């Protein structure tokens, strides 16, 4: 198998954008205001958990978490260019940053999970090995296996950092339906094998609020992430 993998071969599984800041004590006064804002901005919004320091909300567009020192937006159905994701994220972050009067961030991160499916785990492992990301002699180590099937790498400078994890994995989905719903086919079983690519792109140096716009940063960062991963894959 040749190492002609590209990030464009992967399906975007999940994306999370998170900003961290010093304790924003206005959360105690304005969480309700933010929830009210979000209700007008998103559809089907429900508060899953509300605690003084931490509120989690769910909408059709994704999940929101609001905490004393961080907030994040995540979607399990993001578009590949993250433009829709970024549009929704901007609405959320603009409301939070305005209402909590946040002027600077200690860290801004975008984490995206990608998956490329293969027929079998062996095929996924072969694709993983073909990338030659790990340079160790194939021999059984730790009594476990001769070749690793997961690699984690981190590049971190004084301003930007990235972690990348690539895993050959397999899993099964087992759904047991109640007999009254599917009397002829009560169970659904599906086996999934593939490569999971997990990239976390984040800032190391503090970011001023006037420097950051969720839409601009997310849509720009996803391109940087894909370009960096493609470069690692030898493209």
């Amino acid at each position, binding site marked *: 198998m040749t190492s002609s993998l590209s990030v464009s071969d992967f399906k975007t*599984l999940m994306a999370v954008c998170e900003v961290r800041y010093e304790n*924003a004590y206005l959360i105690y006064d304005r969480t309700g205001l933010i929830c009210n804002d979000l209700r007008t901005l998103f559809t089907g919004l429900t508060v899953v958990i509300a605690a003084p*320091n931490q509120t989690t909300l769910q909408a059709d567009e994704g999940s929101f*978490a609001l905490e004393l020192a961080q907030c994040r937006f995540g979607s399990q159905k993001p578009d590949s260019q993250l433009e829709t994701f970024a549009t929704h994220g901007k609405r959320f972050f603009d409301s939070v940053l305005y209402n909590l009067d946040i002027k600077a961030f200690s*860290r801004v991160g975008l984490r995206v999970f990608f998956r490329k499916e293969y027929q079998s785990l062996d095929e996924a492992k072969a694709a993983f090995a073909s990338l030659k990301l790990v340079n160790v002699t194939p021999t059984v180590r730790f009594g476990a296996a001769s070749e690793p099937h*997961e690699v984690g790498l981190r590049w971190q400078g004084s301003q930007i950092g990235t972690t990348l994890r690539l895993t050959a994995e397999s899993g099964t989905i087992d759904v047991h339906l109640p007999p009254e719903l599917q009397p002829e086919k009560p169970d659904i079983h599906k086996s999934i094998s593939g490569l999971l690519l997990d990239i976390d792109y984040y800032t190391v*140096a503090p970011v001023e*609020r*006037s420097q950051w716009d969720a839409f601009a940063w997310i849509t720009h960062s996803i391109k940087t992430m894909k370009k960096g991963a493609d470069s690692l894959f030898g493209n």
Partner: protein
Amino acid sequence: MTDTIIAFPKPTARPSLPVRETGVALRGTTQPVVGLPMGGGSARATVQSAIPIDALYPATKESAPDVLIALGLLADAIALLEEARTASKARDMVMADRYVQRFQAALPGLFTPRGIGDGYGVIINSLHFAFINQRGKPLSFDQLTTVWRVLRELRNGPFVQFEQALDYVGELETSGLQIDPEAISELLDDTDDEDE
């Protein structure tokens, strides 16, 4: 099998972890020392400098979003104003004015990516009217320095909030530049007369 957590993190109570990755708690990310004031006033680095804007939005060949267009044009504009300041300092007023005129010609281009924010738009718009109201009169060294400094601030924080942008516009006014369109000034004068 993988232990990757791909569900949205459960909001269970937990202590603040100094090292975490985005969204889910896995292996560590070094948390930087934060030295920026978090509430009220203007945000300025006190302990650790804020990230350079070019690191946050690195230039790419593939795409040119508004922010990258603005950053490129602002860099050119700042360079022109630096040249103008240098010439003005050397008492070469003709050369200084030549650079300022080139800067003025770049203002419509700077207005093009105004979609990046109201704060950005109001600063560029104010500069546009300031030059119109100058009616060809050269800028003083102090005015040049103010415009240069405001543009440097804008380039470092192009998503400046409208309220903060008004502070910058106020600085332009304080330097003696008239940043309102003439018609507005006349209307304001009329209103003042009526009040009296």
